[in-house]
């Protein structure tokens, strides 16, 4: 499995951005199993890039190929399969169901294409320190807790690529490391790649490639 970015540039960006960026306007190939770090200051289009790859937006020029297929040509149902089987994500804005409990939020993703049994929800939640929150409504959890819920949710399905968009913005170092370790462990189980976009370099992410957006 390979994810390729072919000279992509958001249609609302100036073409000159190609000269200063290591991603925009360049051709890049990400292979399964690779850890990729994308360092990007605010406003450089980090979230846009993650959304383009996930197929949520398409206001860009150039092509994104998944397994040599242009995702722009995907029909709606192709995207459903892509998100269920191949690409998982932790959104910067988390996107949880506030009225549902923590467990329900995670279960909604797990039942779609279960990589783990339901018991693994409890194990992961314990590991990240939110084991006692599973039956609480998500809206009463702190932002840091919600970030951990979103991380656990992203690990419930099979994937070839895990997209992370500032996943630790509200976590302290210790909790961030725990979460990172869990994600590394889970991606190893799937021989998957992690594409980690953040404001700055993080030492505990063992990336093989780094790009400045």
């Amino acid at each position, binding site marked *: 499995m390979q994810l390729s970015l072919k000279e992509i540039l958001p249609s609302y960006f100036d073409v000159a951005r190609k000269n200063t960026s290591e991603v925009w306007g360049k051709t890049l190939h990400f292979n399964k199993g690779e850890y990729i770090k994308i360092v990007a200051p605010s406003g450089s289009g980090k979230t846009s890039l993650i959304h383009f790859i996930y197929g*949520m937006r398409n206001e860009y020029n150039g092509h994104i190929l998944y397994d040599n297929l242009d995702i722009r040509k995907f029909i*709606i*149902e192709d*995207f*459903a*399969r*892509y*998100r*269920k089987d191949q690409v998982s994500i932790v959104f910067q804005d988390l*996107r949880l*169901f506030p*009225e*549902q409990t923590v467990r*329900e939020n995670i*279960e*909604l*993703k797990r*039942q*779609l*294409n*279960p990589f783990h049994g339901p018991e693994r929800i409890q194990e992961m939640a314990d590991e990240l320190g939110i084991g006692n929150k599973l039956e609480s409504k998500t809206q009463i959890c702190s932002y840091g807790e919600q970030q951990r819920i979103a991380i656990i949710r992203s690990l419930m*399905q099979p994937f070839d690529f895990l997209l992370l968009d500032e996943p630790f913005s509200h976590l302290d170092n210790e909790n961030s490391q725990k979460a990172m370790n869990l994600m590394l462990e889970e991606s190893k189980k799937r021989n998957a790649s992690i594409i980690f976009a953040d404001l700055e370099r993080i030492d505990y992410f063992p990336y093989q490639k780094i790009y400045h957006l």
Partner: protein
Amino acid sequence: MAISFKHIKPLLQTGTNTASRWLSYIGLGIGVLLLLCSIQMYINIQQMLKGNVVRKEGFDFISITKTITNETMGETEKNLFHKKDIEAVKTKKFVDDVSPLLANQFRVQLSAGAIIPFSTDLFIETLDNDFIDTVPPTFNWKEGQIDVPLIFSSDFLEIYNVFAPGQGLPQVSAETAAGIPILITCEGNGLKQTFRARVVALSDRINSVLVPKTFLDWANKTFGNNNDISASRLYIKTKDANNTDLLNFLDENNYKVNKDKTKFGRVKQVLQGIFSALGIFGLLVVILALMLFSFYLQLVIARSKDNLQLLITLGYSPDWLSKNVSKQFIPVYIGIVLASLGITSVIQWLFHRFAMYQRPEITSLVHWSIVLIAFALITLSVFTNYRLIRKLVYKMF
């Protein structure tokens, strides 16, 4: 593994607008009930009036004339059926056959010879044998033959027997009438010829003096001078003289019909009109209720938009979501239509038992087609519902 809808159901904001939801349920129920009841009553009328007509050989024979009005009184042409009128009647699917009642176009005189000193000017007519109820094998004529068989209306014999005593004439039975030698004299084109006629049968159906077609064709040619086959009366052979399409056709063309034979049909026509109108009204209410329901659904989808959108973002298939969201409403539709069907059944039972005193023509059970329509309505509701939800969900992507 099948994905469960259990966790998704709470994400659908069916909302606090319970009143509008119940209003649309009730509206749909009333519409379906009206529709089913009207159709059931329509069928009841059909069944009850079917058996009330005297049928011969499985067909009804009715005679029609053009209505003579003050405007058309002097214009014979307008009051006759011409070839194209006859063809027009013939092509109708509710008409099995048509025969014009052709009349003599020359002077005919009848006398009973020496036995009864009676003589009168007469009209003779002819009709296809198929249309006559009593056709003995002797009812035929060949050119050169002096004997002409006649078929008389039994009404004429009755009328004769009424006025005969007053005139000092003997009354006659049907058998005697058949034995009386009658002379008919045809006159025209400067020719005059007398034939020996014999009444070979009496007819209950045709109010006329009938001769074989071969005779009248020959006589019209010989003594008459008009070759047009226009007739003032047409006989129609039909499976059901009470068929409302037939009656509507006759009304449209301003044709007058033997009222006795079609009076049940007239009642049927009016009742069917009433129940058709009620049925159409019911259908409109169903459409209105479905529209109301679709607004309610749109509201539900609009309220749940964020949740549904997030489910699609997480990888839920819009197709699967549309199917499962619409499935939530299937029990509601089934419930409403089945309740209406139940009420229709009760009404039919009460109607049969108490209003119709268990007449054998109809049953206490609803007609099978009502059940079929009920299921068709469920299918229609489920289908329109699914299409709407699918459209709305796909728009979210």
